[in-house]
């Protein structure tokens, strides 16, 4: 599965199922799915601007860093780009390991880095809302845990 940047809907359930089949035998599979919140202040959809080529490379660099840093066997990162409707998954990250702590930490680490180091630009659009989103202070704090 590896790294995928998708303009089409991301099927997180199918990705998780496939990852379990292929890599579950290592013993520990941690996963994270981020969904566009439907209840949050009038946002109808996200638009994720991306830079073809550079965006994929930035995501791959994050996955490679996780594999180098943690005792894990395999990772998957599926990330949407383009228009993502409220209620749809925007990101799916998984890691397989023989050790549950390594699997947890790898997924946690990749999510932190994706928030601020993947070449993506998030715009929230909805009823009276149209704004580019910048990483929040808590994202920077969360990222700093790994440095």
């Amino acid at each position: 599965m590896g790294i995928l940047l998708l303009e089409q809907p991301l099927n997180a359930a199918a990705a998780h199922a496939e990852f379990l089949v292929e890599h579950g035998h290592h013993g520990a599979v941690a996963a994270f799915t981020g969904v566009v919140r439907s209840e949050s202040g009038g946002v109808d959809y996200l638009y994720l601007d991306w830079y073809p080529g550079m965006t994929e490379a930035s995501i791959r660099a994050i996955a490679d860093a996780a594999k180098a840093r943690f005792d894990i066997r395999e990772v998957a990162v599926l990330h949407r780009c383009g228009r993502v409707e409220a209620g749809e998954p925007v990101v799916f990250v998984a890691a397989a390991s023989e050790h549950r702590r390594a699997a947890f930490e790898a997924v946690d680490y990749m999510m932190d880095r994706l928030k601020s180091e993947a070449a993506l630009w998030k715009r929230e659009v909805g009823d009276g809302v149209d704004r580019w989103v910048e990483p929040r202070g808590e994202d920077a704090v969360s990222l700093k845990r790994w440095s």
Partner: protein
Amino acid sequence: MAKVEVLFFGRMADVAGARRKTCDAVRLLTLRESFFGADVAAVRMSVNQVQVFADQALNDGDEVAFFSVFSGG
């Protein structure tokens, strides 16, 4: 003068009022100033898909991009 492709992403596409332009340019920071003036603190840049943080000379066929801070995940 080098002929370069210039791409704009995120908020900087709105600020520049463009997604893509072909420009004649000599140096990266001069090119950036031509689109964003002196107010460039929030403008990130890349040359040939590698993020860069300092000035450099541009060559024919270079692909330059200007963009706002990343926000994925």
